[in-house]
């Protein structure tokens, strides 16, 4: 799986309330509508600054807080293609993979806003094309890689009728 896009940088401990505020997410299951409010509490008009395929680049503990699965769904529905962060909170991590949103865990300190990135998930490499350097990725656990390759938990269940971890 090769993903190419431009980086949007965010800080440490970006919680799921910041990804999509509770005041919107309780009202609807329309993720396209919710996506209009992505990161609104910390960066108003964020949705206007992104193009399809762009990549979120963040610090440690991305996705902490609430278990809302709307968070990865809103990221996907905003047209973003992946999240690259130093570390992820565990519920968000599972929710993202369960919805086929690629997550990449690596050192993000050298990446700057607007850098063009290429992520090769199988080879475990992020390339900063703008700056010309590569970063090694902490690989996904095998079962999570399988879920991601299946396209998420819904597709996995449709394929196997339950969890197939072997």
């Amino acid at each position, binding site marked *: 799986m090769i993903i190419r896009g431009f980086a949007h940088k965010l800080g440490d*401990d970006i*919680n799921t*309330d*910041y990804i999509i*505020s*509770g*005041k919107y*997410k*309780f*009202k*609807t*299951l329309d993720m396209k509508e919710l996506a209009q409010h992505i990161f*609104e*509490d*910390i960066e108003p008009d964020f949705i206007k600054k992104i193009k399809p395929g762009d990549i979120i680049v963040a610090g*440690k*503990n991305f996705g*902490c*807080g*609430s*278990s*809302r*699965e*709307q968070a990865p*769904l809103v990221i996907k529905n905003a047209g973003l293609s992946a999240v690259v962060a130093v*570390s992820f*909170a*565990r*519920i968000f991590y*599972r*929710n993202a993979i*369960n*919805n086929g949103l690629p997550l990449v865990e690596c050192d993000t300190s050298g990446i700057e806003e607007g850098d063009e990135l290429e992520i090769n998930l199988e080879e475990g490499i992020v390339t900063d094309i703008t700056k010309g350097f590569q970063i090694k990725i902490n690989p996904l*656990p095998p*079962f999570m890689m399988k879920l991601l390759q299946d396209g*998420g*938990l*819904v597709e996995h*269940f*449709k394929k196997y*009728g*339950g*969890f197939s*971890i072997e």
Partner: protein
Amino acid sequence: MSHKTLTEKIFEAHLGREPKIKEVVVVDVDFAMGQDGTSPLAIQKFYEMGGKKVLNPEKIALVIDHGAPSPNEGFSNLHKLMRDFAYEQGVKLFDIGSGICHQLIPEYGFAGPYDIVVGADSHTCTYGAIGAFSTGIGSSELAAVMISGKLWFKIPASIRVILSGKLPTGVYSKDIVLYLARLIGADGATYKALEFDGEVIEQLSVDARFTISNMAVEVGAKAGIFPLDEKTKIWLKEHGRECNKDLTIDPLANYESTIEIDVNKLEPQIALPHRVDNVVGISEIGDIPIQQGFIGTCTNGRIEDLEIAVRILEGKEVHPRVRLIVGCASKNIYLEAMKRGIIEKLVNAGATIIPPGCGPCVGTHAGIPSDGENVISTANRNFKGRMGNNKAFIYLASPATVAASCITGKITDPRRYL
């Protein structure tokens, strides 16, 4: 290898063999829960996955608590989806007025020692207080549990948290857990289980332990588990659960690390905006005026919390520039508080009582602050915008500190009233 963490003991009981830390296992789930922010998506996913009938309807509950009663038509339509699904599938529904999921699940005996419980809400870790391995999941996973009865887990490494000393007057379990967040930070226990030990545990009621387990997720933990003692066993019996097995900490188990907290000199703690781990002691805080206080939530909306607050507020009045909002964590707590005269005393002091539910904590209704206001709350999160306005400032504290602050109109050490 006979030395095991609480987490390993609980998983061993399900697997019928010794689990290995970091091993991925699929196990039968004893109970699963969803609330009105997560269940509608779970129902949608259930059908997308090809679900037709919930496998074990008696092991599932849906709770309408985040917007109860409904504050708008969007909420109302999602509530209807939940009500219809629960009726058709024979699943237990806790409708408006019942209370907050994390009070109801243990209160109705749906969680207990050695159980593996999951919930589509991050604070599902609350039931660790009564010896369950319980953790938050997403909506897709709740759908998967409804279809298959199972979920996969990576057995977490555990951190032993030793609480030693004697808890001083005016200092509560909320202060301990805020101090823990201060010590290890918002990701200090990510992917790990916290397991509590030490002489302070016996000084804490089960209600007080729920407060600590509830906030385990605020340091990233997957679970926050207490060993069982006589207090737990009595509590379980009162809530329809028998418990014949012991669950105790083995200091020789393979703990990844140990954290020691001496509570003897602990003072009331406050989390400053906009981070749960941005914690200071009350003596360091200075003059901070407040315009709203909130006592309630899955962290501190239990009968003991209300008793603590009323001890401070009885015969006094809430400051004229402050609104105090109080919400009981469940209908049964509300009824008990009425029976004990707590509600009357709180209302006389100037408090506004809201229906049992999450409301103000999640910014859905019943107490959204205005721009620039400071709120002191017994909740577990103070993220920017959390209470529905990203221009407000949220401080987290114990029910005692919130009560004292509502009298003076500024953040106040509760010990002056005790």
